[in-house]
């Protein structure tokens, strides 16, 4: 089983991080009266988990009947969402007098028009249903929805919080984790607990003794190492080989131009070149990414970027 599911907390007591949010949400739940909620924040910091805890606490054993989970980026279009919402909202909650809950994940994936439709849906069913929306950026949610919701901002987890969770897992799974690994994972994941647990589980599938080098091994395996090779070849002046490997990598891993440029931009910092050249290349990276969005042929754009690594 994936640890991100196995170790998903079921109680406010086990929930780590976002103390300020959790405290207020807990008060809502205790009064059995929650408003529409908007959870905004980066990935892997507990938005879905908190929504689930709300449902479990409000409805107990019947939570599954009273909680509808939708994903805005998977459920194609607002019509599907509307229909599902309609079916779900038609009946009132069985067990208690409280409202049923619809959790709409990644709601910033909805277009402006779809959000307008969602707003109407929220109004229509406000007698029987409460919405919990989650998003990465609340600015992408239209004002009329924002104004109907209590907004909560979630923050990346701190090192202490990540450590706490890792220690708990280590105890359950009988892992031995090197001291340095905590810091490394916290930094690499930018406080995204899901990423931390995924990397940790990948490490553990190789060795229960989790060392610094094992961690780095897993993380670097996650990115095709060829990009670095391509850049170094270009710097050495072997453009033809560089582009051949680049094309092959893109095809074999089915990477898009944007996937590649993202990684090039990260890789530039680690290259063995003078600082002013690095700045120049980062600048170029941005320019090419812009043209890639405006242009039609990602590979020509990547070649143009690569040619700048050859330049003296």
């Amino acid at each position: 089983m994936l640890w991100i599911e196995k170790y998903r907390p079921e109680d406010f007591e086990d929930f780590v991080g976002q103390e300020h949010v959790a405290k207020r949400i807990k008060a809502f739940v205790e009064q059995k009266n929650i408003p529409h909620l908007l959870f905004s924040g980066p990935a892997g910091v507990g938005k879905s988990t908190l929504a689930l805890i709300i449902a479990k606490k409000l409805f107990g054993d019947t939570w599954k009947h009273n909680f509808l989970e939708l994903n805005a980026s998977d459920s194609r279009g607002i019509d599907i969402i509307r229909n599902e919402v309609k079916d779900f909202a038609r009946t009132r909650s069985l067990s208690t007098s409280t409202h049923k809950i619809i959790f709409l994940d990644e709601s910033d994936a909805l277009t402006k028009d779809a959000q307008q439709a969602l707003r109407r849906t929220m109004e229509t069913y406000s007698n029987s249903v409460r919405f919990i929306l989650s998003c990465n950026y609340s600015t992408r949610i239209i004002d009329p929805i924002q104004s109907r919701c209590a907004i909560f901002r979630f923050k990346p987890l701190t090192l202490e919080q990540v450590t706490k969770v890792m220690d708990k897992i280590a105890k359950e799974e009988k892992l031995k984790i090197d001291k340095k690994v905590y810091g490394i994972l916290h930094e690499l994941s930018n406080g995204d607990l899901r990423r931390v647990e995924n990397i940790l589980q990948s490490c553990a599938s190789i060795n229960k003794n989790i060392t610094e080098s094992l961690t780095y091994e897993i993380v670097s395996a996650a990115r095709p190492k060829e990009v670095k090779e391509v850049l170094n070849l270009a710097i050495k002046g072997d453009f033809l080989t560089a582009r051949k490997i680049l094309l092959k990598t893109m095809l074999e891993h089915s990477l898009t131009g944007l996937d590649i440029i993202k990684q090039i931009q990260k890789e530039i910092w680690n290259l063995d070149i003078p600082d002013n050249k690095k700045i120049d290349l980062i600048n170029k990276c941005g320019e090419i990414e812009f043209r890639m969005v405006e242009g039609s042929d990602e590979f020509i754009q990547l070649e143009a970027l690569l040619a700048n690594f050859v330049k003296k």
Partner: protein
Amino acid sequence: MLWTEKYKPTKLNQVIQHPVEKLKKFVLNSKSALLIYGPTGIGKTSTIYALAQELNYELYELNASNFRNKEKILSLLGTSTQQKSLFNNGKVILIDELEGLSAIDRGAVKAIIEVIQNTSFPIILTTTSFDADKIEPLKKYCQILEFEPLTREAIAKKLEEIAKKEKLDYEPSALDYLARYSSGDLRAAITDLQVLSNKKITKEAILELGTREKTEEIKNVLLKIFKTKDINIAYEAISDKKSVVNLIDFGKTNRSPAVFSDDNALIYWIEENIPRNYQLNELSQAFDILSKVDVFQRQIMKSQHYRFLVYIGSLLSAGIANAKDKKPEKIILKKTRRSPKQNFRLWSLVSKRKYLIADKLATQTRLSTQRNLEELPYLKILLKNSKELQEQLELEKQDIDYLNKI
């Protein structure tokens, strides 16, 4: 839908001009190899498809560009040339586009020969370059069949048939002109017809479309641009031949190169050959120009603002010529190997697999397929190692193969 697909022959009697009887006889009676050669777009592959369909044979198709090394070929071909058809019908094996065989792998040709010598089914190979060195050793082991360029009349007739079915508004003489202009390439003619189909089809409209390149002419244009630093000479090279060389890929109607796509546009030829002739700063300057041209290319498709072509023309000729520091002593030109269409096909194949796995992950996590796609790189080692998860996610062999590869 692409008309080239829509109007593909489904029966042998719909195939025009080619020696289908010989082909049929070979498939019915032989357990050896047949090499079909002929120029591009005349229906080599689609004839074989029509034949398989008519005989109700299973067709096992492989593209030679997938043959990276000997092991790969033997694994791709070895079993299929021995195994009976799944449905107990006959089977024919098609190795398409032999010219795409990478030259580095000398083992490749040897491996194909080995397969031919041991096959229990007819194998058909196709190529457009009969004289290429790399396929020379193969010829001894194959029967050989030539497919000739289609006649003007044959193409015109086919175009008229399509035009009627699609209820197009056309001048009959224009179709004839289109047919001549395609030099025997039916696929090109049908593609052009579809491109022209939104307006009345006239001779003028065809002229506007720009003639399909001829390799030699493109090479001449390229030579002039690469040789000179004089922007006037360079510009003349393209303005002279404006009607025969496509500057950009007019097929790029959207971001997906799967449709249309003109693999022979000048922009791709320049792209292919810049690094062979330009060094260091020349290289980056020349590619900077190409990158701008590509942005114009997209904006033309998006806004139909064809005036951008003026800048594209100047940049691709004078701009590229002027990007070099000094006149070169020697010019190296290679035919463009780039095929956006083919690359896209390969790319989507892998991409589909990735999505399938992410989909399966989505059933076990509270995450969208998209999010799972982002997490997949961090989970691949885990998924490879954990039999328990493989079972829980119902990963299939192909999924695990993919995970092992990346």
